[in-house]
């Protein structure tokens, strides 16, 4: 499986490195010593969520939220188009903070082995997953009200990539520490419970053109897909997987992931015979 999913790992490493280089180079550029051929933009300028939080300001006043620029809107639109086609592939493949959490999770798996990522019973957990929508609403309202990127003060991603700058609020460091700690027990805790951008992209799972489908007639109910899912989605009991937490990581699929039966769990536009459409 690991060999099959090599392409996702490579893309994750590339985007994590790019984000880190941009973050470092922005500071160097301000000091007049930029690294050649690396973007000098701020981290805010290349964050697609900046486009989301700017929507209200753009409509109401025609201006961007402070520190956000046109580039964020461009990236937001690119990610939205990709999500409409492929679901939240940005979360599963691109987001550097999701990658960071996955790396921490490797340590958690070594410590807790099979128990890892199963500490919270799903019957409770599935409701906790809606917390991120509360975060999203709060961020949108506060940003619209203040005209500032309020979330930066609580954003563990910002803390991770700017910790050396002196611009990070203590609350963001606390959030980063909490995410690192929780990642030892739960896979992608920030994505599951708190990421406002993940909340937005998660909604695309209900309208995506190419959804994840399970072939009920060939499925052997081995539950390997459930175990492979970092977001704890009960894939093995679904026909068409329409869960707002799916991050399109492909770790569960027949061709590229955990499913041992060919042509049983795939991202496809065509429903399997006898399955829900």
């Amino acid at each position, binding site marked *: 499986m690991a060999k*099959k*999913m090599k*392409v*996702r790992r490579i*893309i994750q490493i590339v985007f994590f490195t790019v984000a880190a280089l941009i973050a470092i180079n922005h500071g160097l550029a301000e000091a007049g010593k930029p690294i050649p051929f690396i*973007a*000098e*933009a*701020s981290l805010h*300028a*290349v964050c697609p969520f900046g486009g989301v939080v700017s929507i209200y300001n753009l409509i109401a*006043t*025609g*201006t961007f939220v*402070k*520190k956000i*620029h*046109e*580039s964020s*809107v*461009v*990236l937001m*639109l*690119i990610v939205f*188009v*990709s999500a409409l*086609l*492929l679901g939240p*592939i*940005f979360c599963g*493949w*691109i987001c550097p903070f999701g990658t960071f959490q996955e790396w921490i999770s490797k340590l958690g798996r070594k410590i807790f082995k099979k128990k890892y990522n199963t500490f919270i019973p799903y019957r409770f957990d599935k409701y906790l997953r809606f917390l991120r929508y509360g975060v999203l609403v709060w961020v949108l309202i506060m940003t619209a009200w203040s005209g500032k990127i309020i979330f930066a003060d609580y954003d563990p991603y910002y803390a991770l990539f700017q910790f050396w700058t*002196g611009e990070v609020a203590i609350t963001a460091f606390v959030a980063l520490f909490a995410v690192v700690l929780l990642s030892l027990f739960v896979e992608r805790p920030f994505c599951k419970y708190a990421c406002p951008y993940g909340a937005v992209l998660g909604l695309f799972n209900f309208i995506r053109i*190419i959804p994840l489908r399970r072939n009920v007639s060939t499925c052997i109910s081995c539950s390997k897909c459930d175990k492979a899912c970092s977001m704890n989605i009960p894939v093995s009991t679904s026909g068409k997987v329409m869960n707002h937490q799916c991050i*399109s990581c*492909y770790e569960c*699929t027949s*061709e*590229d*992931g955990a499913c041992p039966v060919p042509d049983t769990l*795939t*991202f*496809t*536009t*065509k429903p399997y015979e006898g399955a829900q459409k």
Partner: protein
Amino acid sequence: MRIQAKTAGISFIVLMILGLVLSMITGYWLTESSKEPAKYTDGEYAGASNPADIRGSYSLDDIHTAFDIPVESMAAAFGLREEDNPGSIQVKIFEEVFGIIDGMEIGTDSMRYFVALYKGLPFVVEEGTALPGPAISILRKEGAMTEEELSIASENSVSLESTHVIETASEVEHDDTVLMEIKGKTMFSELYDWGITLEELESILGMAAGARSMSVRDFCMDNGIEFSTVKEPVQVLLDNM
């Protein structure tokens, strides 16, 4: 249509590259502010640049371009020295250099406030925002605000004595480019050098003035006089020089 992982990943990359190239070709790929603040959209000032949209990334040169305020005036207002090349200084450094003084903050919003008062433009200042003491003197001389607005601004001003960017009193010479501001360390000799007469000083003090080398604040403390009651009228005299 069926999509495998490799295809999905490559599709995203292709989509991203196409989107970026398209936005670059159309000129929409901007990762920093255009340095052109938004305009007021309605009311008396419709079409004028709105100081509320000044960003931390703006330099004093950018603000000069947008609002036609001399860089020298802004530099003096915020205690910046000529050798600091104030035109290139970005407003966001104020938070770092000044930060919180006496419970009030000097930062980007202070510059917005200063510009608004200087140009007489409407602006809602954030709670806790302060103006540096020298800014009040500049506004008194050059600003387009009302007396009431200046009075409110004075109440929200703080001294820059404790910061390192401002010149010490002993370094100040009396010429048109130097800001004359009475501070705790200001000596009687400096006041005389700036043009205040002994009679004017003694009239304010209500007694004989101290030695030339003595600071005004030390003199006030020794004689049981509240320094602020002397500072204000002396500053008015200096502003009218």
